[in-house]
């Protein structure tokens, strides 16, 4: 009996985690109206998870765009299609790379700090202290970070996309000598605002929600020890990355 059960135990634990995370989401949503009172806290969090992530997002966006430009230019030149460089770069960024890479960076940069911060607040009784001062920590601590993730992610992804296109332009036009007008006109003719840009933004909004949900959940339910916080931070990155890629596939299938 135990032999049969043993492999199922991690599965059961995993399902229990997902269930607990679902209940946690429900509790956040219930605390959202109350959290509107803490608008200032939400703005502060948008600054922390959004503005403070700008440097890494911009740097990575620029280099991803430059690599794309370089790789695609050589591939396209085989078929004599270098004129399509702008289009291909923009489409891959808007549809996939922008939202997904931004989400992975966001999980590493903002997700971990959210988990560690809430985890340490838990470990040092700050969460309990708020409860004792009749302040709902879900409304004051968790919901503002959750909202901040949803607000910041699409903006960060847009910045990433813009820098990516700039990077591809730098390589394709300034370095490899592609015609400037061709680069831009082909791009604007073939990239659709609704199909490509807005759908990409939907994706990044969803990623922002999922990553901050996982990050806050891991921090909130961490064991109040240094080891517990360390594990929770690791789990945030692992689960966020997996969730991002899985949701990306599902959303792509539906949005196509």
């Amino acid at each position, binding site marked *: 009996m135990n032999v049969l059960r043993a492999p199922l135990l991690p599965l059961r634990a995993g399902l229990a985690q997902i269930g607990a995370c679902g209940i946690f989401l429900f509790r956040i949503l219930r605390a959202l109206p109350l959290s509107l009172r803490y608008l200032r806290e939400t703005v502060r969090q948008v600054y922390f998870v959004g503005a403070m992530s700008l440097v890494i997002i911009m740097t990575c966006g620029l280099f991803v765009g430059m690599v794309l430009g370089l790789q695609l230019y050589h591939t396209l030149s085989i078929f004599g299609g270098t004129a399509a460089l702008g289009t291909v770069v923009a489409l891959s960024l808007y549809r996939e790379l922008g939202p997904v890479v931004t989400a992975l960076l966001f999980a590493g940069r903002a997700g971990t700090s959210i988990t560690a911060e809430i985890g340490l607040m838990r470990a040092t009784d700050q969460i*309990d*202290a708020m409860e*004792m001062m009749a302040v709902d920590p879900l409304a*004051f601590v968790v919901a503002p970070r959750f909202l901040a993730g949803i607000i910041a992610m699409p903006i960060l992804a847009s910045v990433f996309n813009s820098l990516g296109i700039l990077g591809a332009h730098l390589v394709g036009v300034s370095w490899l000598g592609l015609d400037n007008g061709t680069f831009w006109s082909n791009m604007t003719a073939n990239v659709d605002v609704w199909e490509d840009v807005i759908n990409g933004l939907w994706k990044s909004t969803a990623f922002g929600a999922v990553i901050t949900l996982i990050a806050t959940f891991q921090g909130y339910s961490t064991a109040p020890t240094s080891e517990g916080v360390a594990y929770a931070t690791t789990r945030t990155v692992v689960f966020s990355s997996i969730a991002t890629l899985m949701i990306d596939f599902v959303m792509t299938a539906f949005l196509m």
Partner: protein
Amino acid sequence: MSATPASDGANPRADALISIRGLSTVLNGKTIFDGIDLDIPRGRITAVMGPSGTGKTTLMRHITGQLAPDAGEIRVDGQDVTRISRDALFGLREKIGYLFQNSALLTDYSVFENVAFPLRQHLKLPEAIVRNIVLTKLQAVGLRGAADLMPSELSGGMVRRVALARAIVRDPMMIIYDEPFVGLDPIALNQILKLIRTLNDTLGVTSILVAHELAAVRRVADRIYLLAGGKIVAQGGPDELARGGTPWTQQFFNGEADGPVPFHYPAPDYATQLGLAGGKP
């Protein structure tokens, strides 16, 4: 009018702010409380003492509704905290000041903002009034000059005094001090002791003091409950308990290493575990 003092004397429960009946708790398979009855009188300093790990903090968590017991009734100011709604519980907590073992200051906020936190969250007061209240409370704990510092810049004793200022900022009806003396030097300890006594006398609050420093507790407490092994093993005034002859009080007040509170954590038979029983190697 003459009935009031008479009923006070005859029935101490009528005067109790907190009244606990039949409290039982099992945590991780370990019995923490086994049918405890306990009353905390209004306007007095009641100390809950006992060896580490007897559930003193757990008892405070029950009283404040942070943790639900397995059985029993906990009435605080007439309300059963095990049954009331979250809103009612939050309403009750607004009237309770809680000093955490590790002070639990919000590390992102300055001393001033920490003390102002409960005011800002619950009352819409003009900034000038918030400022005056906070400075008054900081003055009471002697830290008005530290208002602009961050918690990380304070010493252990100062952190605890800031936490105390935060606990009293809304003039609560009751203050719970959870291990307020741990890790304090003699000067800081005396300062905290003096504050506990002064606050109790001037504000007329009910104070619950969780501690195991006997010498300190004897100086302020009006009444002491001694918890051990999931039960209340002794209760009474400090001097009464010090004189009292139960084995529990003897061991605790004389600091004996072994006695009714065993030195050894429950374990299987020593010889068996070492493989010496029954002649086996």
